[in-house]
């Protein structure tokens, strides 16, 4: 809640150092790390997502977990709430890790922009 507000307020008050949330990162993603960053791979195929009629917001890197959950729900109805605890937990954890990764990217972008502004001000 507070982070969403601060992101909007910083975007309005200081747009020079606010990361754009609707486009790719503006700095070299590999800079600043000793080891090259791992390329993220999509586990669910397009045919599987089409077969299970996933919404656009559900076609992320956790789609294979969601497909397993929907399959389990279909097979164990109407006791899916109890039978599919594992799949639901796995999907939630994957979404949480994805969220952490995305907010880290946002914070990296934000700090690099502030660093750039700081260096320009001192130079």
């Amino acid at each position, binding site marked *: 809640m507070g982070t969403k507000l601060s992101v909007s307020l910083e975007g309005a008050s200081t747009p020079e150092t606010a990361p754009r949330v609707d486009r790719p990162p503006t700095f070299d993603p590999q800079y600043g790390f000793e080891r090259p960053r791992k390329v993220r791979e999509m586990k669910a195929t397009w045919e599987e997502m089409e077969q299970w009629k996933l919404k656009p917001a559900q076609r992320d890197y956790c789609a294979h977990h969601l497909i397993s959950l929907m399959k389990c729900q279909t097979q164990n109805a109407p006791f899916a709430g109890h039978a599919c605890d594992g799949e639901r937990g796995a999907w939630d954890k994957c979404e949480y890790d994805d969220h952490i990764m995305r907010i880290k990217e946002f914070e*990296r972008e934000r700090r690099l*922009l502030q660093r750039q502004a700081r260096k320009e001000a001192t130079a």
Partner: protein
Amino acid sequence: MLGNKFVAQLALQHLRNRGLVNSPSRLTFVRNRFAWGSDAVGPNVPVGGKMGASENPELHTYDGDYRGTISKGDKPIPDYFYRTPTTGRTYIDRCVTYFISAVIWAWFSYHMYYHSGHLLGHWYMPYLSEFTDEELGIPKDSAEDPEYWGNHKKEYGTYR
């Protein structure tokens, strides 16, 4: 003088001629056999709902009208209330209430024990300031600058 049985069979013959009744053995919307005599007499006991004339005190009555379970301590519900509230709940009402409450509390307790994360959150959600510069790959100010691909300083609409 024709009897009722003969008149009924004659009527059935007329219906069969007009095609309304195809066959005596087939199930149709028209009754094949007309009730008369002793067959038309129904049960003379209350079997639920009402039977008989409305003035008949023996037949025009309800079967099993529930006025509370006296053995469980209920006051009998009178026939009418005159400017007074009702006399509380019955034993059946209390049992139904108990059952519904038990189901709801069982559902709530189970879900709060096993699925409390849906309400309270499963894992820690950090503030952005908690991440370190090394973790995010932020170099020191003395280091060289990373490659910049953005358009923050440009006017909106002048770039792709």
